[in-house]
């Protein structure tokens, strides 16, 4: 009983903490603290937090394996939804704020620029995962649910490549991110082999 209540509170705390990055950027917008290119700042901020939530989400299973605690899995689905949330704000910043729904230019970008192509593909792949992220869909899909949600492995790689391809010169950060993703993914294969 006590444990149940604790779990519930913890979930609310984690949910609130996950919203801090979006409130932070809204605060910066309102107080006029963004730099000379505010739209770029918002795009980069939400893009980075999408990547961080990919890492957090992918880290839950390895954490369970290392600590032998199941509790991590309770938050995995919520973190996954925050990937979709930040990715959507990121995309809307680009589509709405930067290009003002200029669909022709955006379409041109998606076709011609590979980093936008792969980023957009990653967002599209997130949609079925977001739509099936409720308890009802888990019971309906049963075994298929897990299979479907393994798409996140591919999405995480798309995210890493999106970042790698857009950087102009200094590849350090995207390469670190790619390495972290690969390490987290490697746990899945180890698990299978065992």
């Amino acid at each position, binding site marked *: 009983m006590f444990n149940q209540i604790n779990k519930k509170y913890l979930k609310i705390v984690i949910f609130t903490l996950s919203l801090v990055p979006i409130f932070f950027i809204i605060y910066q*917008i309102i107080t006029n603290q*963004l*730099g*000379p*290119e*505010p*739209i*770029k700042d*918002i795009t980069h901020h939400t893009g980075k937090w999408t990547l961080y939530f990919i890492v957090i989400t992918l880290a839950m299973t390895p954490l369970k394996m290392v600590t032998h605690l199941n509790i991590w899995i309770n938050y995995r689905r919520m973190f996954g939804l925050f990937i979709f949330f930040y990715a959507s704000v990121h995309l809307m910043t680009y589509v709405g*704020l*930067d*290009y*003002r729904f200029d669909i022709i*230019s955006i379409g*041109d*970008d998606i076709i*011609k*620029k*590979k*980093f936008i192509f792969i980023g957009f593909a990653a967002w599209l792949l997130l949609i079925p995962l977001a739509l099936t992220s409720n308890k009802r869909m888990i019971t309906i899909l049963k075994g298929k649910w897990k299979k479907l949600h393994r798409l996140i492995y591919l999405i995480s790689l798309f995210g890493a490549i999106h970042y790698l*391809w*857009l950087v*102009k*010169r*200094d590849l350090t950060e995207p390469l670190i991110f790619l390495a972290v993703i690969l390490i987290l993914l490697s746990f899945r294969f180890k698990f299978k082999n065992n």
Partner: protein
Amino acid sequence: MKNYRYSEITPEKIYNKRRDFVKSFGLGLGSLTLGSMSLLNNAHALENNSELTSYKDITTYNNYYEFGTAKGDPYKNSQEFKIKPWNISIEGEVESPITLSADEILSLYPSEERIYRLRCVEGWSMIIPWMGFSLSKLLNKVSIKTEAKFVEFESVYDPEQMKGQRYPVLNWPYREGLRIDEAMHSLTTVVTGLYGKTLPKQNGAPLRIFVPWKYGFKSAKAIVKIKLVKKMPTSSWMKASPREYGFYSNVNPSVNHPRWSQASERVVGGSLLSPRVETQMFNGYGDEVANLYSGMDLKKYF
């Protein structure tokens, strides 16, 4: 033509007021100099956006990888940088190579106000009231041999003082180049200052080049060597990624950079709701420079 002393400090507000004054008479858009080439150029640059970029944005939002790759790094990391003494050599295919100090150059060639749009290859732009003079004046000091077809600019190499040069982000020292007719064009400027003040270190002090119709990276900062050469030089960015950065790098909305749009640009200093503006061929200086490229396929020679 009015020349400004480097000690003459014009605060941004007064600066803008003076511009309003000029505008209110409907005389021109950018400069107090009437009937000169530069007035035409200035008016051109300012057709779309009549506002000068603020001094703060021009001096805190920079691409200057010698001091770090983040936009704020050059301002943060350049303040201790020593620019005295500073020598610049002009050498290569010339009859009489010379070395001049930055101070000598400043006193030999009076600077004038030149308001140009800076268009970065990353898709943003600023309107900057530079101080400077045409590079051709400096090049005319040495007799250029007829074999010379290109000019190579070399920036300073000093990893002790320039943090960014301790990492192989680019092939140091920074190198850029122009065809000789581009270098001799009156728009090609040796920059000595901005907003009527001496050039801040993060903007390329003591002397930098500015080529208004090309993407910003073509304009080398803190130059120490100007070399007349026979063959097309390989610039640092060409070496880094030949597919993305060509020798010419003229601002051209119809030639896409492989990774981002060149059709439009964001004007630095705008608000969240300011729209992108259309990028102009040759950054709006086509009337002055298009003839340099007649008959050339600019998609091929990008």
